[in-house]
């Protein structure tokens, strides 16, 4: 019965979203406040029913109700509770449910928290949000219904894909979807503004919290996915330029550009047309990402053609929303007045530079991801575009961006002084030069370019600190006054500095791992030693360890420094899942400060030896630490009081917003 309640709740939500997509617009057209105000309770009710449907599905999963086909196909009653719950979105139908749940959650948040929004903007934005929701709810009900039932329930489910039986599944998809879908709100705001034909600097202020929130979640979601792939796939890579990864990187690049251009629009009223376009593009890329991952087009163009219903439906959604939005844009954008003059060398100019390079980088990823698909669809030729392509195109586009990054925050609005900025960055430049010299001196056999990479990373990190030091007049005034300045500094300034610093940290990690990481592959017998970097691992043997729905073949290794000091044990394993007759590699990781030793097992050889892959990953944790710092930067910026300006500030509402954000 619970499944049926969820099914019906989803249908009611579809009905509500249809109402929500029409009434508020009629209201704004006719200046009818009553119809406009229908958007708010409808959005809240819609979220309530979608949440009910989601919870119903989750209940079926947690209680292993195999009379639900989707549960039978993707779950198993022997799995631990966490995976019985996370397998809700470990499959196509359920993950679309998660998608729509988050979509309506954002709609409800705008309805509940957007008290400072102009009434028309809010009504139109909620209507557009409902178009998207209606399209996806229909998609779920017609092509991907998770509530399909089996008359004679099977006794046992077919288990979740073993690769997904990992805590990473609890974190990565929800975070990623919060990011993807977060851009839908910005999209809705953009379309609402175009419908109304009025876009001004205030628009950027109103949408800024949503852009920031989506960007933060996407950053953390991508980083989480990268770390998951790193330890679960068993060969220690952190980024593969895989189409699924690119699908999440593209909205991130566009979203980062949007974040920056919105600042210009907000402060100076310039770049309006461009910002609106970016808002449309960011969400369009999210939709394309969803299409790529969900239509099956990635596994093979032919697999897509075999069961085209889903793919065609998503494609239709894509064409309607992206095509429609761009058409509306082409029609309305020329009516927008441009405003705000600035010199090329200025904060605005720097942000334009940022936008140019970010969008070009995004375009290269787009081409590299979609070209092979288009080629296969048209000619049947299969090509694969891999890391070499991206390193050659994406790298050179990102490098100038990284070098220019510390300059931006030091330039003044409207007209900046590049020379003065460069002088202020002198300390950062010296630090970077020292870092280059030091890494040349220390490096034994790495690529020649690596020390320069370290230099750029240090330059970025030091640049972010210089920015903060300049603003707090570090060392130029007494410490007490400095502290006062630091506290008085807008939190968005702190946020920006943190985010930039985080980029530097991530870059440092990437450079160090790629240049100085080492790898050993060997077949070991019990008692054998293997050395890597300044560590020595002794293989003590293997033993079996049963789990709830799998069995582990565990290898036990003792780790020592080459000098002999005992550091601990590592236990990588091969995990066999009988329900699907599949095995996964569970790598063992040992962190030494920011470095990691990474060890994974292969299938034992007949002669009793066990193949192992052993990596030393210097500074690898910096890659994800950087993303966390970026997230914190975003959070700081989001907490900035000024973002909430716009309405008289009743204490209650302010408290509520803080809680929700």
């Amino acid at each position, binding site marked *: 019965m619970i499944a049926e309640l969820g099914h019906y709740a989803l249908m009611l939500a579809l009905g*509500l979203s249809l109402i929500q997509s029409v009434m508020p617009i009629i209201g704004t057209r006719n200046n009818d*406040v009553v119809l406009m105000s229908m958007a708010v309770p409808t959005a809240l009710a819609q979220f309530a029913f979608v949440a009910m449907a989601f919870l119903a599905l989750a209940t079926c999963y947690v209680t292993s109700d195999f009379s639900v086909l989707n549960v039978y196909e993707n779950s198993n009653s022997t799995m631990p509770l966490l995976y019985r719950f996370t397998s809700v979105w470990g499959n196509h139908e359920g993950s679309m449910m998660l998608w729509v749940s988050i979509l309506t959650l954002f709609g409800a948040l705008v309805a509940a928290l957007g008290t400072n929004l102009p009434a028309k903007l809010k009504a139109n934005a909620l209507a557009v949000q409902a178009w998207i929701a209606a399209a996806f709810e229909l998609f779920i009900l017609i092509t991907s219904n998770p509530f399909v039932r089996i008359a004679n329930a099977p006794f046992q489910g077919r288990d979740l894909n073993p690769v997904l039986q990992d805590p990473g599944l609890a974190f990565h998809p929800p975070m990623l979807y919060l990011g993807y879908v977060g851009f839908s709100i910005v999209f809705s705001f953009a379309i609402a503004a175009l419908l109304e034909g009025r876009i001004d600097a205030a628009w950027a202020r109103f949408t800024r919290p949503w852009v920031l929130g989506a960007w933060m979640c996407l950053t953390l979601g991508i980083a989480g996915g990268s770390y998951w792939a790193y330890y679960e796939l068993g060969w220690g890579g952190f980024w593969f330029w895989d189409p699924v990864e690119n699908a999440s990187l593209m909205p991130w690049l566009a979203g980062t550009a949007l974040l920056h251009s919105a600042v210009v629009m907000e402060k100076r009223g310039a770049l309006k047309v461009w910002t609106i376009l970016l808002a449309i593009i960011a969400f369009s890329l999210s939709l394309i990402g969803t299409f790529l991952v969900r239509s099956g087009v990635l596994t093979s163009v032919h697999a897509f053609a075999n069961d085209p219903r889903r793919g065609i439906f998503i494609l239709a959604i894509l064409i309607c929303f992206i095509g429609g939005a761009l058409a509306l844009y082409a029609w309305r954008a020329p009516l927008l007045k441009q405003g705000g003059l600035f010199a090329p060398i200025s904060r605005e100019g720097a942000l334009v530079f940022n936008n140019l390079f970010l969008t070009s980088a995004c375009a290269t990823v787009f081409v590299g991801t979609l070209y092979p698909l288009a080629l296969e669809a048209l000619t049947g030729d299969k090509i694969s575009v891999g890391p070499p392509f991206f390193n050659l195109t994406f790298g050179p586009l990102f490098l100038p961006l990284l070098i220019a990054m510390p300059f931006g925050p030091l330039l003044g609005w409207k007209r900046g002084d590049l020379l003065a900025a460069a002088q202020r960055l002198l300390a950062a430049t010296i630090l970077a030069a020292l870092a280059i010299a030091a890494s040349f001196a220390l490096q034994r056999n790495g690529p020649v370019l690596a020390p320069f990479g370290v230099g750029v990373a240090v330059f970025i990190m030091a640049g972010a600190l210089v920015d903060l030091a300049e603003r707090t007049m570090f060392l130029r005034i007494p410490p007490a006054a400095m502290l006062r300045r630091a506290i008085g500094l807008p939190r968005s300034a702190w946020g920006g500095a943190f985010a930039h610093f985080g980029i530097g940290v991530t870059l440092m990690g990437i450079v160090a791992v790629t240049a100085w990481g080492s790898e050993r592959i060997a077949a070991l017998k019990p008692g054998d030693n293997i050395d890597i970097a300044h560590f020595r691992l002794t293989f003590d043997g293997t033993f079996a360890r049963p789990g709830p729905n799998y069995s582990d073949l565990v290898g036990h290794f003792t780790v020592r420094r080459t000098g002999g000091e005992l550091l601990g044990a590592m236990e990588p394993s091969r995990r066999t899942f009988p329900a699907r007759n599949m095995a996964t590699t569970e790598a063992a990781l040992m962190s030494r400060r920011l470095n990691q030793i990474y060890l994974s097992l292969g299938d034992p050889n007949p002669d009793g030896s066990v193949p192992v892959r052993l990596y030393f990953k210097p500074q690898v944790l910096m890659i994800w630490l950087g993303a966390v710092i970026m997230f914190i930067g975003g959070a700081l910026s989001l907490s900035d009081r000024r973002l909430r300006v716009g309405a008289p500030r009743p204490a209650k509402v302010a408290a509520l917003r803080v809680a929700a954000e």
Partner: protein
Amino acid sequence: MILWCIFAVMTAAAVLAVLWPLGRRRQKVGGGSDVAVYKDQLEEIDRDRATGLIGDVEAEAARLEVSRRLLAAAEKQRPTESIVATQRGLRLRRVAAVAVLLILPFGAPALYLALGSPNIAGEPAFARVKTPQGGESIASLVSQVEAHLAQDPNDATGWELIAPVYLKLGRFDDAVAARKKVLALGGETAKRRADLGEAEVAAANGVVTAEAKATFERARALDPHEAKAGYFLGLAAEQDGNADAAGSIWRTLLAEAPPNAPWAGFVRAALARLGQTTTVPGPSANDVAAAAKMTDDQRNDMIRGMVAGLESRLHDNGADVDGWLRLVRAYAVLGDRDKARNAAAEARRALADHPEEIKRVDDLVKGLGIES
């Protein structure tokens, strides 16, 4: 009935939520405006100038820009005339109410009648374990035994208990694994060997593989009178195309059989079948004998040829459900899952008028684990 009552309550809640604003007499023209944003921006320019982020001249220009926007926004902020009381407003409201009352109480149930399954009760696994009797008790027993074996994997009796159940449930690989456990833990006997072989044959879709044959031979070595092993060795000979050898093995088996052996009828049926091997559609004894001499590639070609023949025959006469089942199984055994799936799809089309037989196809597809 309860289900429909809850649906009614849900629908009523949805309708209420939507119509709530329509029912209110007075509407507050809520919402914020741009003015506050621009006022704040003016303050911000002062702050920026204090920290030196904007030059004095530029700050003046920026202030002018923002002031201009502030004026424009204030202009627009004239209180919007609410048209709630006008005729037109009332008409719009009525249209909206009618639309809501059509979509929610009629649209959603109509959709549900088309897609929902109100008559299927939920069957959470945990609730089912507690059901003492009925058709589901086997499953819950299996899962109980499995849970026990997960705790204590060295319990030979447990494995011996569950192995035949696996075989009946069609979980052949599990049956093989369980039989191997029994052998390893409980010691080797002829009967246990023969049982392992039986499971291996089932796992290979009824083919006595070389591995299974070796298992049966080992069983016969332990006990030359092991009947099950004898039967399967005969079957192996038959599948190799050696009908004479098969016949003589089975006749010996019958001659040695104790009176009233429960399996005697089974072996007699097999003997009777030997006479027909050349007439049933399928490989003739000569074909199979020839196959025994071929290389692997040639043999595969021959098998594929036969499968293709079967397929074209089925295209002419789609009503032969056994033929379809054989085709799907053949492709699955050849490892061609896509073709097996396609064949199943075609079978469903060809048998569209016979839901009973489609069910058999579906069951087979599920049993082979090839559903997409």
